[in-house]
């Protein structure tokens, strides 16, 4: 993404020059990003939604503000907004199944139900309780884009008993921690056609861009030529074949049928040096895309 604003460029340069690996990673993401349209980039740089400044701190805050105001929103996010020329993934087989890992911590608290109670209800197909729970959860969810992957990309992991931990690691969800006990999660499953059926814009499925989430060193932009993003796993990448496809879909109103599995993450997230993880991930992206200049 070519930042044209001189002030923001100054901040970006500071970030790139930082000795802090996370800062440098977040700044690099802005540079590497290929999927943000000019209109959207211009909005990000010039719109008066946040303070402008010349420092990395100001640029990072501006990024966080942008995500709060226009991505994690109760209105249509820029991610799918046709006027922002979304980063479309192009044609896609509509019967494909999508999976997404959702935290259940807050939905359970809102509903007033424990993990065990929900698990029991799920296992016994307690239609009334599940419908009631999902109804509340759907209402509480806003319109933000959902990071997801195809079922066939993780089908092997899903078959294991420790699927929550495996998916957490493969999808790079470092914020799912067990520092305060097991993390209850749900594996949601829905089809591309279900996403499209609820769409309010022409592009309800997009390739992720750096502006679609908070500044995050575990995010790594993929070359546009790959059509989909590639999740950076929490463990060192062992080759381009292990890269997991990731994309964004617009809100799906969950039904009982979509609540595929319920489980708990029970192991701490593996933490490796971010520089090492990113270096290996970049190499894999270069191989996968055939573009050895990407990221250099």
């Amino acid at each position, binding site marked *: 993404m070519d930042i044209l604003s001189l002030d923001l460029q100054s901040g970006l340069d500071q970030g790139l020059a930082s000795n802090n690996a*996370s800062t440098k990673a977040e700044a690099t993401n802005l540079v590497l990003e290929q999927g943000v349209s000019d209109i959207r980039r211009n909005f990000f740089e010039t719109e008066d*939604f946040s303070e402008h400044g010349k420092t990395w701190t100001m640029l*990072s*805050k501006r990024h*966080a*503000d942008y*995500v*709060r*105001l*226009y991505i*994690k*929103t*109760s*209105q249509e996010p820029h991610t799918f907004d046709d006027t922002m020329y979304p980063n479309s993934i192009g044609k896609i087989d509509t019967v494909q199944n999508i999976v997404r890992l959702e*935290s259940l*911590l*807050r939905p359970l*608290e*809102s*509903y*007033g*139900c424990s993990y065990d*109670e929900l698990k029991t*209800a799920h296992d016994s197909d*307690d239609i*009334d*309780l599940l*419908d*009631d*729970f999902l109804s*509340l959860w759907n*209402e*509480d*969810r*806003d*319109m933000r884009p959902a990071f997801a992957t195809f079922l066939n990309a993780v089908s092997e992991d899903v078959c294991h008993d420790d699927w929550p931990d495996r998916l957490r690691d493969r999808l790079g969800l*470092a*914020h799912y*921690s*067990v*520092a*305060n*006990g097991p993390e209850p999660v749900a594996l949601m499953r829905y089809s591309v056609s279900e996403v499209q059926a609820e769409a309010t814009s022409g592009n309800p499925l997009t390739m992720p861009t750096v502006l679609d*989430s*908070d*500044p*995050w*060193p*575990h995010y790594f932009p993929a070359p546009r030529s790959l059509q989909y993003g590639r999740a950076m796993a929490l463990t*060192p990448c062992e080759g381009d074949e292990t890269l997991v496809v990731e994309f964004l879909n617009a809100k799906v109103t969950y039904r009982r049928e979509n609540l595929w599995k319920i489980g708990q993450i029970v192991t*701490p*997230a*593996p*933490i*490796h*040096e971010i520089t*090492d993880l990113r*270096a*290996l991930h970049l190499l894999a992206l270069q191989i996968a895309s055939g573009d050895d200049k990407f990221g250099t």
Partner: protein
Amino acid sequence: MTTTAIDHSREKHPWLDAVKVAPVDAVNDLLQGYAPVFPYTRADAPDAAHVLFGSLPHDDPSLLALDRGIIDWLDDQRREPLPSDPPHLQDRIRQVSEAFEIIALLNLPTSAAKLRNEYIRWASWTERMVLAPSRDAQAAYLRMLANTQRIATSDKADTDSLGPFWIRICRDAGSKYPARYLQIGLLGLRRLPSAVDNGDTPWIAGLAAWAKEQEPSDKAFLRAWRPIKSLHPMTPSQTAKRVYNVLSQREYADADITPPAWWSNDPDLPNTQTGKGQRNVMEPPPPHYRQTLLDDLRNGARFADLEDRLNAMTNMYKRFTDVTGDTYHLKRSFSNVGNALLKGATEARQERAEFAQYLARQTLRYNPWHEYAWSLWRDALFYARSFEASIALGWEAILRFPNDVTMRTELAEILIACKRTDDALNLMEASIEADVSNVVSFSILSRLHSHTGDAVAARDAVDCGLDIDPHDFGLLNALDALNNNRPLVLVSTARQRVIDSMDEPSHRQPSEIERSGTLRGLRNRLAKDQAALNELKSILDNDPTFAYAQLLAARHGIWESTENQLPLFAAAFEEALASEDLIRLEALTQQQPRLASLILLARAILGDETAATEVTNRLRRPDGSEDARMTRTLRHRFEPVLTLVDNGLSAVEAIGKRSQSLRVAIYDTNEILAVPELMRA
């Protein structure tokens, strides 16, 4: 190249030190996504907070700092105007909602207690922040209250005191509150400490209250009932018994609702009807328990010796009411015992007065329109020497019960005792003119005139009173005194006794009652007195979210809502009325159908013929309308209009002739409705 795994899961995050140094800034950073909390930066603030703080001991300095910081942050937000542009507005609501979530997730006691104790302030603020189901700060606030009931109370407070409040939320889910709030009301009941500790099932009363009020279809009722049944399994016969406990009570019997009523479509319930004589309904507390307390109070027993029994009695009645939803026994007992505590008290006056207040307020939680409870509360405040609060409450009570003569005469006695004789005189004269008076009113009037040295007026008042009742002993004595040129005693004996007691008036921060009382005193001067307007502006500057101040400011054109601000309904109504905006008034009817009569009357005053005819018909009818309470309040003030219509005027002409007094009636009614929780917090 190193690829070493580093396990940080058990270490305290370094950012927690920043929380100790500057808690409010840290909370702000967390909610805005600026906080350097890697690897949790990407998580929403409540998730991040849960991970960072959830395993800390309750006395950890960082956790304590977070507790202080988050409530201070909320206080700051409450003083800020809401943003007008949609992206910032939805973001602000989300941040506030997440702050409430954090408090509940982490069980932060200081924040939770303050948010509960200052309910009026926070409820009226969050009421403005309902943009969409996913941006609903009111729901987030209520859920936080539901989930923190056990921790949010001081030593003296009652952890179950929100029980009646949750019942009201259930009842009004689908009318005053969105339908989805039924879940919140039921959550509150499910999380009542007594429900958790004793195995009570107050949610059955909640569901019954909802069903009676909202009349759901059979399918809709089962949809609401079955998840609760799953989460709180009981045997079918236990369920049936508890359902019968609730539905056998007077409130449902009077409405011809026969057990098992809405539960009859649940195939799991045993197909049995209870008959008379079968003892499977919950009985109220035995009457002798209350009676012996009353006897002991009247016989001069010491308060300290009775306190345990008083508390036990209170808990028994509350538990019965929470389980069954029947308020009759509680209302009666609390009023009787409360009055007995105050009458003739010669010791522990402050403790008795506080307990009587407690009984009054508990009664009002279950039945906000119980006249005796209002009187008891007013008198208890007076006995506690909280004179300003007593007076303010007295005025509130008159607004709510405009036809009650005793409310007026008792307030007049209090005003006299507090040396506010001009106010007392105005009150009695206005009451007599409005024909809400009796011999006592004239007796008081005569004493007031005698006090000012106007013997002629004093004599006239006595004569008017004797016209009503020629044998009234007090008036005959007054006549005798006046005939012998003796002045009449101004202050009543009972009130004088309180004034003369050795206790000092209580000095503390003004309560919400007193703040509203101050505004009530300003109200009549605002139309013509710039100094009063300036005082109102100053009050609003000091607390821009003070609902009643905002309402009065809207009425007098010194407050405006912007298009994207979410104004308190009552203030929006005042603004629409003041600017004679018929379209906006119509839109407000859609928003609050239960206030339809009030809005209709407003439209009628502005010349809307259809509205004039409709409201005339409505106010003639007995209480069958949705807004029954409000129509009863308005009906008395509307009677002169009905007389004019009966004498041949059209509805709109008749309303036009009485528009000034009807406007005042609208103002009064709107004010009652604007702060509905004021007297129950």
